[in-house]
């Protein structure tokens, strides 16, 4: 039986490459695609950006930066050319529209959140409790899928408006203030996101992402 078990192991290892047709995506490629997509569902304040490229900064995540660079050519965001910047130190951060902080870089995340506090940067983190460090979006992996959660409080502080469609795909949305049960009409109008929670469909992790997220 020990021979048979070893044979089973070896057979599995041998057959697999013969069958391999690469149809699965890497986590990094999906996250890079998300970063690109997020931009279309977020409104940055002010309008004097013509001519300046849309910057997606990546801190300490060379694989994500590489995937972004492969994905970005030929695409524009809000009619601006897209530039991917790899950042090695928080002090080198300029004023990117989006900042992705690599997984596990908690200290850098806190530093980035405070350094970018006066600016309007969409900070995307990739770790447990990333939102409490000050990011606006945080990636989660649930049942072999990359999902994300949103902090509307952080979005408000960064003067970013987040579309309800993005909120609808999120796994969790943390409100800027406590949510009441009344409809949107009874609340004063402030950040678009507040009311959007009412309309957002929460998807249980593990359920197919296509349902209930609105037509795309």
């Amino acid at each position, binding site marked *: *039986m*020990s021979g048979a*078990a*070893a044979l089973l*192991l*070896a057979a*599995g*290892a*041998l057959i*697999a*490459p013969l*069958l*391999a047709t*690469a149809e*699965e*995506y*890497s*986590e990094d*490629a*999906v996250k*890079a*695609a998300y970063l690109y997509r*997020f931009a279309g*569902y977020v409104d940055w304040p002010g309008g004097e950006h013509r001519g300046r490229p849309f910057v997606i900064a990546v801190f300490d995540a*060379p*694989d994500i930066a590489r*995937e972004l660079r492969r*994905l970005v050519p030929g*695409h524009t965001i809000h009619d601006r050319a897209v530039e991917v910047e790899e950042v090695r*130190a928080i002090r080198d951060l300029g004023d990117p529209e989006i900042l992705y902080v*690599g*997984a*596990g870089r908690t200290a850098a995340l*806190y530093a980035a959140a405070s350094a970018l506090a006066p600016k309007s940067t969409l900070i995307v983190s990739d*770790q447990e409790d990333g939102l*409490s460090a*000050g990011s606006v979006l945080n990636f989660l*992996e*649930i049942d*072999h*899928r*990359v999902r994300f959660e949103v902090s509307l*409080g952080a979005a408000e502080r960064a003067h970013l408006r987040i579309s309800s469609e993005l909120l609808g*795909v999120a*796994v*969790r949305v*943390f409100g800027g203030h406590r*949510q009441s049960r009344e409809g949107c009409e009874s609340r004063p109008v402030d950040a678009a996101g507040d009311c959007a*929670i009412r309309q957002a469909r*929460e*998807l*249980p*992790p*593990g*359920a*197919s*992402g296509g349902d209930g*997220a*609105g037509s*795309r």
Partner: protein
Amino acid sequence: MAVALLPALWDLALQARAAGDSGAEDLSRMSLAELANVEVTSVSKSSEALLGAPATIYVITHDEIVRSGVASVAEALRLAPNLLVTQTSASAYVISARGLGGNPVAQNFSNKLLILIDGRSVYTPLFSGIYANTIDLMLEDIDRIEVISGVGATLWGANAMNGVINIITRSSYLTQGTLLDGLAGNQDQSLAARYGGRVNEEATYRVYGFEFHRGAMESADGSTAHDGWQKGQGGFRTDWSNDRDSVTVQGDLYRGSENVPNDSDSLVAGGNLIARYQRRSATSDLQAQAYLDQTEQFAPAGGVGFVVQTYDLELQQALALGSIHRIVWGGGERIYDYGITNSAALLFLPPQRTLSLGDVFMQDTMTASADVNLIVGVKLEDDPFWGWTPLPDARLSVRLSADAAAWAAASRAIRSPTPFDDDVEEKLGPVSYLVANRRFHPEELWAYEVGWRAQPASTLSLSLSSFYNAYQDLRTVEPASATQFLPLYWGNSMRGATFGVDAWLNWQINSWWRLSPGVSWLRERLEFKPGASQLLGITQAGDDPSAHASLASSMNLPRRMTFDATLRYVGALPDPALAHYYELDARFAWRPSKALELSVSGVNLLHERHYELPVPFGEQITRSVMAEVRWRL
């Protein structure tokens, strides 16, 4: 033959890699909702977060556990290369790290590990060991198991002498929906169900229940050891969180029974309730936790046994002071209230006690420069039977480059006396041959460690650490006096050092195949103090193999199939002696749809039966194969 396969495999792997690198184009065309639906093959990311950590840490991820084919938490612990897990019966396992795993000949049990489930300590205060039949969980609910070898006293708690095992379950918002799991095999059968729901935007919950039956192992002559057992368990967890605060309340209840030859069943039962509050901000992180725990084990017909009730309250705060200091401080109080029903041969006197274990600690992480962190901490522990002891800890972590870091640590830990060390009396008929003496000293350890971690490529991460443990006052058996042999008592007449290396690497060979070899090597240089009786010899501190190793292979096959296998090696045990052995666990799974997963797995596949601890201390562990259906509604 295996060696000849490797070049062929390598060529095929390279070809598969070349074919599999596209996809960026397709993804850029996908909507958010479509991206949320894409199945990804993930690379183990835990190493990135750990790069700068100044300790030997192996994180067993949720995926590793679920894909390995193991059926219990104790078996899942084998996935950590820095832990040694030895199965002795259908329900009993000995778990140790860095040696000194105990020796049943000397009634010495593996008693130097702290094991926590969601912050609740689960080692028994009666002798500091682990009852493996009380740590079952629904494996699907485990988020990760952090295995930290070495001293964890300052931050983690009492008894963290050789290591800390921190089992963390998933927040309920990650376990939504209905899950049904059925498993049947030649040895194990189980049924489990879990439902997760949402109360509102901020609060989620889950409830679960499972029941399993584990078949008996075999005795020396191949007949059944009659040690099969079954257990039913259920529990819940609720999580509430907003941007700043989070509250978790969780609890479990279990009851199991184990067959005993020629007798009715023995009983294990217990329950717990934990409440945890956390408030986080950019500068401060406050945690408060309280739990109640009750556990009992009784021999057949309500005979010998014990009940232990635990009440625990802990507070901890992490603060940033300026840009250089990050302080963690806190304290806690734990009350153990136990009652023992003594047998005629083994008595605890007094049979009931209320023990109090308190502690207060502080740790400062100083950022000396962008690449160097110095961590200094101390815990003051107030142990029952002994009083206040300082447990200092100093660590240095140096970031050598963007992908490599080195660290060094020096720390002190103790194993404080337990009721087994202080209160026990053992008799043979009317004669007391061992009477524990109330002057038992804590066992003491000064541990010196260095380590290095690197991630030279995104596909390769390595960890190497070395330790030198200087022990004092290890437990021995001493005669009553120079003139009188009986009664014996527990002395502290052993000391010495152990040293060794823990190393592992994680190699993502290509997008679908990951290999993780790991090895643990140990040398023990223990000696008796002058005047010691030397009864039962040096190996009473631990019947430890000088090396153990594992090789895990994880493959994502096309058509949503996976194949995982872990080969392990355990070196020869010195005394009582046992030959070295290899064993294999493997699992093949297929996800025909998003909701359904079918799998076939086996544990201990290489031999129809084998010993992990020699007769009479262990049964023969038999091969187990099983099929499982996991259905998400």
